[in-house]
């Protein structure tokens, strides 16, 4: 019987550890985890549990290029009454009282040479989830898709929308 070879054991342990790490990393999680935000806002709670319409907080999609992130005042509209003592809500109230905006971290982004307009897509009746995924399951919002031409062009083709360069690039 051969003696234990420490090197082999070490390699095996390392392999298993990596496997476990990979398993954890690639495990089909209920939803992706996006970047950390200054306030622990949960889309799952607001859009999922409370069933608040996307447009309530992002009215820009109806008549503008940007979806727009709600101003602090809008958060306070509800949270003056709802769980005002919650530590995360306290952060919002402080921001409101100190007149300092909250710097949210972008989860979805397109390069600067791309000119995307929400309004046109919403007018065509495209569901928000088509690009943004199932936000009702996301606590920390993450990009559901890579917003690149490989994603945009097939959809434009299928819907007989223009695929001209100047539609998105200028």
């Amino acid at each position, binding site marked *: 019987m051969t003696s234990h070879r420490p090197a082999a054991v070490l390699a095996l342990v390392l392999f298993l550890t990596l496997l476990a790490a990979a398993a954890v990393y690639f495990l089909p999680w209920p939803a992706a985890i996006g970047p950390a935000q200054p306030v622990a806002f949960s889309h799952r709670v607001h859009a999922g549990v409370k069933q608040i319409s996307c447009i309530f907080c992002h009215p820009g999609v109806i008549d503008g290029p940007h979806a*727009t992130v709600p*101003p602090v005042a809008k958060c306070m509209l509800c949270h003056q009454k709802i769980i005002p003592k919650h530590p995360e809500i306290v952060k919002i109230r402080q921001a409101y009282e100190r007149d300092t905006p909250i710097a949210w971290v972008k989860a979805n982004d397109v390069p600067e040479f791309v000119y995307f307009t929400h309004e046109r897509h919403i007018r065509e009746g495209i569901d928000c989830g088509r690009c943004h995924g199932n936000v009702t399951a996301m606590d920390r919002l993450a990009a559901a898709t890579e917003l690149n031409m490989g994603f945009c062009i097939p959809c434009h083709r299928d819907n007989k929308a223009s695929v001209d360069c100047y539609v998105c690039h200028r």
Partner: protein
Amino acid sequence: MLGLSRRAFLQVTAGSAGAVAASMGLRQAGKLIPYVVPPEEIKPGQWATFATTCRECPAGCGLHARHRDGRAIKAEGNPQSPVNRGALCARGQSAVQGLYDPDRLRHPLRRVHRDATLEHAAWADAIAAVIEILKKPQKNVHIVSDLQTGALAEVQTAFAALHGSEPVLYFEPCNYEPLRDAHRIALGLDAIPRYRIERSRYILSLGADFLETWISPVEFARGFANAREIRPAEYGRDPYESPPRRPGKLVYVGPRLSMTAANADEFFQCQSGAEGWIALAILHELLAADWVQNQRDAIAAAAKIVGAEHALNHAGLEKSTVARLAHEFAAARGAVALACPTAATGDAARWASLAAILLNVAVGSGGNDAENNGVIVDFSQPHALSAAAKLREVADRLASLGPNDVVILHNANVAFALPAAAAGLQNAAAVIYLGPQLDETAELADVVLPTDSPLEAWGDYEPYAGMHSLIQPTTARLYNSRNAGDILLALAQATNRPLTPPYASSPPEDFLHWLRLRWQHFHPQHDWQDALRAGGEFDETPGGEMPASRDAGVSPALCVPLSWPMEYSKSVPQHSAGKMPARHEGETPSSREADTRAADDHFHLWLWPSVFLFDGRSANRPWLQEAPDPTTQATWSSWADMHPDRAAALGLRGGDAIRIQLYDATDKSAAITLPVRITADVADDTLAVVLGQGHWAMGNTARNLGANAFRLRPIQPTRDNFPAVRVRRAAGANPLSYHPTSAMQDQHRRELLQWTSLAQASADPPPPRDDAFRMPLPEGYRTDAYAPHEHRNHRWAMAIDLHRCVGCGACAVACYAENNIPVVGPAEVDRGREMAWLKIVPYRSPHDAGRLGFLPMLCQHCDAAPCEPVCPVYASMHTEEGLNAQVYNRCIGTRYCNNNCPYKARRFNWFDRDWPESSRWQHNPEVTVRERGVMEKCTFCIQRIRHAQHRALREDRPLRDGEIQPACVATCPTSAMIFGDLLRGDSLVTRLFRNDPRRYQVLGELNTKPAVVYLRRVTWNA
């Protein structure tokens, strides 16, 4: 091959580069920072428009500032303003660059004592220091300001009165005082009238550059183009004017081929100062032929000052030419003579202005016109410039300063524009400067208080009496500046003597309150919000007339006897005693004349403000510095023009440095060194020098470029338009302040810019179409190897009327502003690397050396574009709406497209630009900022096309013809450019492309099928 698609190949090869880039963390997560409490009516990512007034010159055009996400991005003309009707000149376009100027003052400055340097100070300390100064027992507080009207003028006047002082002086370096003097002498009206150029049918300009800088150039350029319109009425572009019965004519008399002169149908190059004599010779001819319609006796008496023969001798024109001009002037029914070069102060300009007034009275352009075109010279609406101080007054006031005087200077750069007088400031007890920049005068001050940019301030301006234009903030203050009105009100308040307007009972709390009280007083029925939205109360509906001008049907009576400036009439201009026939149509003076003054170093100076830099106040704007001068194509330049014969006699070659000093100078410091440009565009007795450069303070852009020619303008009015100067070769290195983008005005028979005769242009029926014309549509493909492009819904195209284009360069600067085009600086311009997407190239008429045509050259958006097939990465693409697109994110910078472009309309980014932080705030967020290694060019302002399409979609309607206006089209003072859709049968461009007898395509013979059609320039002698 491996069956690898192009896309897959690129993806694979890009992988390695991508891995490197990713490891360096090129892209950082952006932040989304919403408002705490959002402002009303301003939506993120959407345009808002604020109506205000342009304060870049005394013309006071209405301005629309386009605002986006808290920042004023782009200046446009206000269509409701009767001054500019939606157009804007290059200087107006640069207003936003003035707002974001990195050299603006950010906080107050003060000197602890006279010899100390200016130091940073808090507002409270600076104001306290000023109050300290004002509290001392002074005799006088003097206010010298740039031209102000309305509420700020009231505050200034009240403040001056508070300190028992003399009246406020409004200092304008170009104040047209000879013209005002002439009006006072001849008509008893000390004013600058409103010139209704659009009503004229014949303009005789005596050195007045009314298309570039003279009084109200945007207004005049529009009127000029409308008065000369030759397109049939159904093509009439300008909704405010009906097309004239017959096209008008411009005759220009002067020593230098200015932009205005180059647009004249006839240019008579005369010796400096001969303009007035030519006018008098014409007047004598009118009298002799009995063509004087009004006040004949008074005119005859006034004209007696010189005999007809004498005038003709000085004029230097053939008698037959004078007779012809006189006949044309009398027969035109709507003739007007304009006099006084913009920067002139001398007696020759006074003389010419008087002669012009007599001519105007003679044919009734001030009223009494037989055919009743309406008043052209309208004194019922005097211009704001009528309130400007004489240079003499300003100089005297500054010279009188003593230890008991305090001077408050508001935006008045006397040290630069009146350098001889600025020394007086040192004797004053204290100098307080209010202005947005640390200019030459501010550097002499004891306390410098930063004021708002006009785009940040409240205020008003009255360009013409009764026309109340409002100024409102278009963006929040960038720096720690204040409104000049508020500063004065605060100072008065702090000394416990608050100011109250004459129409209020109690002192207003701030300047805005004052402004609103004033508005309520003058327009009690007019809502303030509505007025702000409109930009003011203009009292004029499109196409209508001001009520006041209808009453002024009678021209003012001439003063009898007319007191001419006798000193001038007695003496004869040095070189113009009939020796030199005025040159015309490419003649050159005989060698005998050149010999007689071989070693003569004596010249008449001719100072002209540049169309871009004006009197130097806008010299710190990179766009304006890099904009090529209309006639010379010079950028970042400061130079002197000299006639070839004189240069040869002095042994000078082009680019040599010359030292210019006053002829009778006792003060040797009044001398400047400049490179000489040798050209027959100036008369041989004249040395023409551009104004506006030579700043030694103000900002990093303006500083140390060329020389300040205001040094050569004495305070005392000279006998000629400008003083006589002496020229010699300068020792030392050449000043290197001349950077033309291209010196070529000859087309080498390529016929890029084409001319046609009036008869052909207005032929009825139109002459048969030329066969070389190819529509940029499938029908234009006849013998082509490639299949035509099919267009989806639209085929965008542009028509450019070369007869309307005056070459002012507003479009080129608007393009810089709209499309984030970088400025490269003089060294790169010398290498031919300027980035202009649109340039206006002047070409000389083959028929008439005294006339230029201006060819706006931009990407032609060819249907068979040579740039497209040569691009290896499909970065140069034909879009489905016919545009030739440059896709920046694909471009790898081979520059093949540029090589293959016959129009040279493409520009390559050789460097990444180092944008100053504040100038990035001006960037149009709808246009990509290009980086190094990328080709770029005109997009027909695709962002504006998309915007209009989007708006139409939102409003559920089709696009309207003319709704889309690229930046160049929108700003053009003469509406020379027309944009539209060739797939629409009824669009104006379609009609011009298909039917206009003047249409042609530049280099159309190359079968590129350009989507820009040019309408030939019309000449009277082709």
